[in-house]
């Protein structure tokens, strides 16, 4: 196993912590299942708790995966290790957030069950993929921010962690607000998005956009980790991202022009 992932699992996913999370969720879901109709649903509580575990707390865990190493003076030891940037990035991204994902994944079946019943398997799976990608995206943005921020060497780890957390949460909310607007569009009869003169299914377009931006965030984490581990980075990936962002944004503008 990736040693960084293994170490994070030892530290973050202790049996006691996992049992505590499972017990807490059981308590909440039991309460919502017996709550009067209209007050709270298990799916609603599940979605709120998913956001808490994967985004609110998850971004903090992801940011601390680097900031805490500096605070605890273990970062030099990690930089001297032979763990590659790819392994280090995955080990931190999924290891430091292991307890968060344990809680978030327990919430997922309760969130998706109503969608499965009412809209079918494809819609439920799409929603599940979006929620998972959204969680990883928020955490990747927080991790990337922390890797950029530590170069400033402020010494204020609380502020650094908070800023990285805010960046991750903001990225997740920005996407989610777009995603949740689909229902509004659907009510007004619009189910497609025009991009570079072509119509795309709104749901699929949002999903592919999220996965592409997630890919860029992960690539950014990998390159920032490379820089920390004393590997040289060329400028081309950054230039490619700028070109991608420009082409992606211009696609909407060109459609406005066409109409």
């Amino acid at each position, binding site marked *: 196993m990736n040693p960084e992932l293994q170490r994070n699992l030892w530290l973050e996913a202790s049996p006691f912590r996992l049992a505590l999370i499972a017990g807490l969720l059981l308590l909440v879901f039991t309460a919502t299942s017996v709550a009067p109709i209209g007050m709270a649903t298990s799916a609603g509580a599940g979605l709120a708790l998913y956001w808490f575990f994967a985004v609110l707390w998850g971004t903090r865990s992801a940011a601390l995966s680097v900031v805490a190493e500096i605070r605890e003076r273990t970062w*030099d030891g990690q930089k001297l290790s032979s763990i590659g940037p790819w392994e280090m990035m995955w080990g931190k991204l999924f290891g430091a957030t292991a307890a968060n994902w344990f809680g978030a994944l327990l919430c997922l079946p309760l969130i998706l069950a109503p969608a499965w019943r009412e809209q079918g398997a494809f819609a439920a799976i799409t929603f599940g993929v979006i929620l998972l990608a959204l969680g990883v995206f928020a955490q990747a943005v927080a991790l990337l921010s922390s890797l950029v921020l530590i170069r400033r060497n402020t010494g204020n780890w609380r502020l650094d962690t908070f800023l990285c957390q805010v960046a991750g949460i903001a990225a997740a909310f920005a996407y989610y607000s777009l995603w949740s607007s689909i229902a509004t569009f659907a009510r007004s009869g619009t189910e497609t998005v025009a991009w570079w003169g072509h119509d795309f299914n709104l749901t699929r377009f949002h999903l592919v956009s999220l996965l592409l931006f997630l890919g860029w965030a992960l690539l950014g984490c990998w390159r920032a980790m490379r820089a920390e581990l004393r590997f040289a980075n060329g400028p081309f990936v950054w230039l490619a991202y700028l070109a991608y962002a420009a082409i992606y944004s211009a696609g909407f503008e060109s459609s406005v022009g066409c109409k």
Partner: protein
Amino acid sequence: MIQIRDLVFEYPGHRALHSVSLTIAQGAITALVGPNGAGKTTLLRCMAALETPYAGSVTIDGLDTREAPRAIHARLGYLPDFFGLYDALSVRRCLHYAARAHGIAPNQAAGAAEAAAAKVGLADRMEQAAGALSRGLRQRLAIAQAIVHAPAVLLLDEPAAGLDPQARRDLSQLLLSLRDGGMSLVVSSHILAELEDYSDRMVIVNHGRIAGGQSIALKGSARLRIELAAPRGELKDFLVAQGAQIVEASADQALVTISGGQSERAALLAALVRHDFAVSGFAEDARALEDVYFAQVKAPAGGGDQT
């Protein structure tokens, strides 16, 4: 083993190292001493390829720290002055992680962890949490983490700081045993009195320069005070040509170290007399290491020369 050439390092608005040149011997313990802020830690971090120098080079086993930092990391262990441990992990897990992080295969990591623990005397505390260890034992665990992959070079920044006398003595024994096992060690320290117990050579760093321009032999050599009745400007060069290492020198006196025993001293004296140096004093220098240190630190800083 370690070659440092014209190394310059700058922090914003402050030059920490001024064209430092130095050779660190293989299989020896080299002590790095100097006042606070002299540049010892910066020098160690440059050796560890954790900092990129502004100019100059550091090579370890022929590898340049700027060109192959990762290959150098595989060859060395480094213990920072303020090190951290994963307090919630047991000693076994700390060492297992360190072994795996240094590229030791999963099926060999447990063995490497136990071997490192045995070297530092922690074999009976494998299941204890790192956070529950005393200061001295934490130091041992940190050293065990740094040597778990059997590096050729071990860099230690103030390893004796905060240790009680018994722990310091144990540390000296540990460093000697690592050297005897073939490791080259560079130890930064403030505690001069203990350096002679385990160090083979001493490098005095002052104001970002190597005081005297070179390292000073502490073991297997004699420290001699030579005094001349008639000053000769070429005394220093002559002594260097004879194989002596200069601690301090002027036209009428010099403090040098020479390798070997009585016959080497006799040969040096004979050479001086043969070349018409008016030798009025030639005796082993009885001054303590601290006196040599303070003499160098107070003297104008030198730079440049190779040991």
